[in-house]
Every structure is written in structure tokens, then in C-alpha cells.
């Protein structure tokens, strides 16, 4: 039993891959695919939970793949940070899967080949987990590639004009970031002779200082593209919103966070001295501010949410940039919070689209009266996103503000100020959306010369009068579950902040992770 428990680390990657293989092999039966996906992801959720428990109790869980000793082979390591993110990401993935079943009745049956969705979705989940568990730069690259390849397929699902157009931008930018990642890895290997995260710090430290900085900057640049850090963020709002709702939701929740994770991991493990604090802080502040101003400018709920996503990446980066224990803890908690709430919001946007046929604000209206359940489902996560207490968004913000204030230099204070201002602007942006979509009567005349996108695609998105009165339960329940999960993050915030802080401890201390990678695990 103990042997199997030690192999738990593998489950979140290998099981979905097996499931994906089986799904493809049995592509003819939609029912079989559903059962495989649900069973697989449910087991993965349980495994991730167990992993978190073990990582918190006994320290980082490591496995040497194939029994090869650490530096030669590949180690998979789940410390508290990885395990925590695994738990959240798998829960979110499972909810989105269930939601997609609910939507499947409506959309996938008609528009998209169902046999593509399930295996790809499972591979995506495996890729995210693989990235969280990698203890090796090249392996991290492979994890990224898995999730990116799956995301290319998902974002162009159905192959409509808008999706192909948006997907192309996404694919090419991601390809370039992958090339940069490969270049960075080759450079790291050329200079140090290894790509193992635990072996790297020592070897990097032996290099001349400017070269260290070059390597660090290359890696940061790569991850920043994936995490959508300003000025490398503009691709995101163009590409995410057009995908099908569950796809957008899972992308928004997870993909950028993998980039954030990679930044945290590499910064803390490989480059423990923080020579780039100023640069990172500036990037964080700019990301927050530019992102949220973008959100204010939007007139479509999905795009608005995409911009808030960019903006709130800035929050996480702020915590990382502070490079203190409190900063990391805040960033980690914020990641957990944001994965949940951002996914939930996109699912709600999907519900709105399903209910009304559009997410264009100037075509929506009166939903508070017409669809009160939808109103509640939108309002709670929207306020959560805006950092309104007592929700987790507030707690994450509070943790970051405290961390920034403790740091006590003017740049950190500016970050705190920017964070507060962004919080207000987030509130403004979502309140505008609420005003328009939920409060304003739909027929209120809007005098506007600039056409909406709806007008650019005549015939598309036309709102039929209360086309469907009831929300499909299959979509609403998973959304509700996720919203409830985000609220549960508030209730359980004490232990959760505790885990985040212990995770941050582990990161700052560094030795537990490095020992786990290099140690002789049977």
C-alpha cells in the first residue's frame, strides 16, 4: 500500500492520458467516452487531494520515473504548492467537464465532433498536472506542450470563422513562446550541463553574474508570455473569448496559472537571489493597471472577463515579485482563488450566452428579473473577483496588501496602491456589466454610432425573445457547484491560508524541494 501511495504523484498525469487513449480508441461511443472521462477525472481529484494531504503532512512527495537516479532521470515532485494547485485545477477541470456534458446536448451534438473533445480535454488536464509536477526544465517544457497542443485543438473546436481567426493568433503566439522556451533550455544546458531544477541552482551560481541574469530573463520572458504579463499579454483577450464556453472557462482558469506556477517555481528554486525585483514589480503593476483599463473599455462580457484575467495575473506577479514569504503565500492563495472564480465566471458567461444567444452587453438586458438564478450565479463570483469581502478575492487581496505593506519600500507601496485602485476598477467593470446585462431593460434605446460586433456579423447572435426559459440543469448545476466551491474557499480560508503560508515557507526554505528531487527515493 505504501508503495502505491508513493506512486500517487503519477496518477494526475498518466491516468488522463490512458483515459484519452481509450476515449480515442472507443471514439464511436459517446457514452463510453463520458464514463471514461468522468471516472478518470474523479479518481484524479481524489488522488490530488490525497497528495495534498501527504505533501502537507510528510513533506514533498517525489517519484523517480523508471527508477533512474535523480539527476539522470526525471523526478516528479509534489510539494505543497504543486499539490494545492493540482487539487484546485482538477476540481475545476471536473466541474467544467460536467458542464460541457450539460452543454453537449445543445452545442456539441450539432457543431463539433464530440470524439475530439473528450480525449483532448483529458490530455489538457494531464498537461496541466504534468507541468505542476515537473522537476526538470525540459519536462516542464513537455508539460507545457501537452497542454498547449490540447488547447490549440480546443480553441478551434468547431472551426468557425471567429474561432479559427482567434485560434490562429493564439497558436502562433504560443508556438513562438515554445520556441523561446526551447532556446532557453538549450542555453541552460549549454551553460550548466543539466536541466534538473534541483541541480541547477548550484551550477547556475557558478556562472558569471550577467550570464545568470540572461538565463533568468530568458526563462521569465517565456513564462511571462504564457502567464500573460504585460506587455506580453495582448494575445489573450483576443483569443480566449471566442472558444466554446467550457473551453474558455478552463483556459482562463488554468493555462495562465501554469505560467505563474512556472515563474514561482523557477524563481524560488533556481534563482533564489532576487536581482529582478524592481523589474518584476513594475511588470506586475503595469499588468494590473493596463489589464483592468482594458476591461473597462470592453462591451462584451467574455472579453471583459478576459481582460480582468490579465489584470489579476498582475496581482499574483506582485506577490511573487515581493519575494517574501508573505508575498509568495499571498500569490499562492490568489492563484487558488482566481482559478476557481475566473472559471466560474466564464461558465456563467456561457450560461448567459446560452440563455440569450449573446454576451454583447448592448444586446443584453433585464436578466435580473428574467433569470434570477443566473443573476445570483453571476453576482457572487463577480463580487468575489472584485475583491469584495468576505469572499476569497478579498482575502487574497488582503494577503497581498499585507505582504506589500510589510515590504515597505516605495515600489511595494505603489504596488499596494495599484492593487487597490485595480480592485475598484474591477468592481466598476463588473458593475457596469451587471448594470447593462441584468438591470437595464433590454429594449432601452442605446444611441451609439459605433456598431457592435453583433452588427459586423449579421444574422449571428440575434437575440430571440426568451428563446429558452429554463437553464439546462446540466450546465447550471456544475456552475453552481463551482460558485459554491469558490465560496467554500472563503469559509475554509483559515486552513487554506495556512497551507499557502506553509507552501511559501517551503519555497523560501528551498531545501525540502531540492532534497526531495535529489534524494534517493526508492
Amino acid at each position, binding site marked *: 500500500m505504501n508503495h502505491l501511495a508513493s506512486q500517487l504523484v503519477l496518477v494526475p498525469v498518466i491516468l488522463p492520458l490512458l483515459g484519452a487513449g481509450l476515449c480515442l480508441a472507443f471514439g464511436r461511443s459517446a457514452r463510453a467516452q463520458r464514463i471514461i472521462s468522468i471516472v478518470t477525472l474523479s479518481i484524479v481529484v481524489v488522488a490530488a487531494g490525497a497528495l495534498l494531504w501527504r505533501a502537507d503532512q510528510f513533506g514533498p512527495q517525489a517519484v523517480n520515473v523508471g527508477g533512474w537516479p535523480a539527476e539522470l532521470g526525471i523526478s516528479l515532485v509534489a510539494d505543497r504548492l504543486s499539490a494545492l494547485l493540482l487539487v484546485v485545477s482538477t476540481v475545476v477541470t471536473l466541474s467544467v467537464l460536467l458542464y460541457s456534458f450539460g452543454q453537449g446536448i445543445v452545442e456539441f451534438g450539432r457543431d463539433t465532433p464530440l470524439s475530439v473533445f473528450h480525449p483532448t480535454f483529458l490530455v489538457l488536464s494531464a498537461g496541466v498536472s504534468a507541468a505542476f509536477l515537473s522537476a526538470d526544465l*525540459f519536462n516542464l517544457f*513537455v508539460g507545457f*506542450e501537452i497542454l498547449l*497542443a490540447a488547447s*490549440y*485543438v480546443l480553441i*478551434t473546436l468547431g*472551426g468557425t*470563422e471567429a474561432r*479559427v*481567426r*482567434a*485560434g*490562429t*493568433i493564439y*497558436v*502562433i503566439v504560443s*508556438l*513562438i513562446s515554445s*520556441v523561446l522556451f*526551447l*532556446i532557453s*533550455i*538549450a*542555453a541552460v*544546458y*549549454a551553460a550548466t550541463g543539466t*536541466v534538473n531544477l534541483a541541480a541547477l541552482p548550484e551550477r547556475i551560481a557558478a556562472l558569471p553574474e550577467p550570464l545568470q541574469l540572461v538565463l533568468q530573463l530568458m526563462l521569465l520572458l517565456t513564462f511571462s508570455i504564457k502567464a500573460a504579463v504585460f506587455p506580453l499579454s495582448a494575445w489573450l483577450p*483576443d483569443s480566449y*473569448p471566442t472558444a466554446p464556453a467550457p473551453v474558455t472557462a478552463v483556459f482562463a482558469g488554468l493555462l495562465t496559472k501554469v505560467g505563474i506556477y512556472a515563474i514561482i517555481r523557477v524563481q524560488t528554486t533556481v534563482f533564489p537571489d532576487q536581482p529582478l525585483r524592481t523589474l518584476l514589480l513594475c511588470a506586475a503593476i503595469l499588468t494590473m493597471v493596463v489589464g483592468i483599463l482594458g476591461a*473597462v*473599455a*470592453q*462591451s*462584451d462580457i467574455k*472579453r471583459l472577463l478576459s481582460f480582468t484575467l490579465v489584470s489579476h495575473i498582475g496581482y499574483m506577479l506582485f506577490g511573487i515579485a515581493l519575494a517574501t514569504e508573505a508575498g509568495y503565500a499571498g500569490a499562492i492563495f490568489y492563484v487558488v482563488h482566481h482559478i476557481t472564480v475566473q472559471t466560474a465566471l466564464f461558465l456563467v458567461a456561457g450560461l448567459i450566452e446560452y440563455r440569450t444567444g449573446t454576451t454583447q*452587453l*448592448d444586446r443584453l438586458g433585464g436578466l435580473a428579473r428574467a433569470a434570477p438564478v443566473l443573476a445570483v450565479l453571476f453576482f457572487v463570483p463577480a463580487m468575489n473577483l472584485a475583491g469584495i469581502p468576505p469572499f476569497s478575492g478579498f482575502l487574497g487581496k488582503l494577503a497581498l496588501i499585507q505582504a506589500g505593506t510589510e515590504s515597505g519600500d516605495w515600489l511595494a507601496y505603489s504596488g499596494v496602491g495599484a492593487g487597490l485602485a485595480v480592485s475598484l476598477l474591477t468592481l466598476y467593470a463588473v458593475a*457596469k*456589466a451587471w*448594470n*447593462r446585462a441584468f438591470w437595464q431593460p433590454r429594449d432601452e434605446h*442605446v444611441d*451609439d*454610432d*459605433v*456598431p*457592435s*460586433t453583433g452588427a*459586423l456579423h449579421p444574422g449571428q447572435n440575434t437575440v430571440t425573445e426568451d428563446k429558452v426559459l429554463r437553464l439546462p440543469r446540466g450546465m447550471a448545476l456544475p456552475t453552481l457547484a463551482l460558485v459554491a466551491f469558490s465560496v467554500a474557499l472563503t469559509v475554509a480560508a483559515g486552513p487554506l491560508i495556512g497551507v499557502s503560508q506553509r507552501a511559501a515557507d517551503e519555497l523560501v526554505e528551498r531545501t525540502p524541494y531540492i532534497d526531495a528531487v535529489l534524494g534517493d527515493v526508492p
Partner: protein
Amino acid sequence: MSVDLALIIAIGVLVACGTTLVLERSLTRILVGFVLLGNGVNLFFIVASGPPGAAPIVGASDERMADPLPQAMALTAIVITLGVTAFGLALAYRTWQLEGHDDVQDDVEDALVIRRAERDDTSASFDEVDESLPEEEGADLPAVDDEVTRENDEDHESPDDGDPR
């Protein structure tokens, strides 16, 4: 360790050409550029593997063997490039099928915001301030404004209470 300048030149040229092509609009051109970039990166891995040596097959030769790890990594990268390029080609074909060309288009929603910026406009969801504010005594209020004043009350159940006088 010593570095092979010929390889460095090859890397530089391949990456430069690849980048130039990737910045184009035509999707097939971008993919051609991507393949060039991929070749350049693979050569980088060869540079990273150090000086040339015998093939890393045990017992095949008595010479010092080349470093196998970068080779394995490059091999993985090559195969991944193959997969995504094939996908990219499918995307290019689909673009052509939909639009009659394979050029990457600009985002339409962004164009709307840019147009708003050019017109010094606000966002579409912004309500300009209008006159439906609580009015004050002292101004010579025509009866119409009087109604506007009452806009503020919450009594929505009786919309016909316009003019009780």
C-alpha cells in the same frame, strides 16, 4: 569549452530567417518560418551538447561519445514540431477555406475599441450623464423637468402617476 563558429552562424541565420517569416501575415509563411526556427533551435541543442564525438552507441567506437541528452531533447522537440506544424497546416487550410486566403486577420473587437479611441469616445457600456438628476428649487423648471425629478422615486408600480395635478 570551445564553440563551433559554423554552427553558431547557422543558428543565427536560421533563427533570423525564421523570425522574419513568422512576422508575415500569410499562415503558410509563418509555418515555414516556424520550421526554420525549429531547425535553428535543434542546432542550438547540438551546440549545447559540446564538441562533436562518436555516435552515442556503446561499443560502436572507441572515441569519446557525443552527449546523448541534448540529442534526446532535440529529438523530442523535432517530433513535437512535426505535430504542431501539421496542425498549423490544417489551420491554414481551414482559413483558406473560410476566407479565400490564408492571411492572419486582425481582431475585429479590438478594431472597434481602436475606432472608439479615434473618435474620442467612451466604452459602449458607459452611460453618459444625462439630466435625470434630482432637480432643485430655484431654477425655472418647466413641467417636463418636473417629471424627470420624479424619475428618481422608487414607485415603479404606478407608471401613470406622471401628472397628478
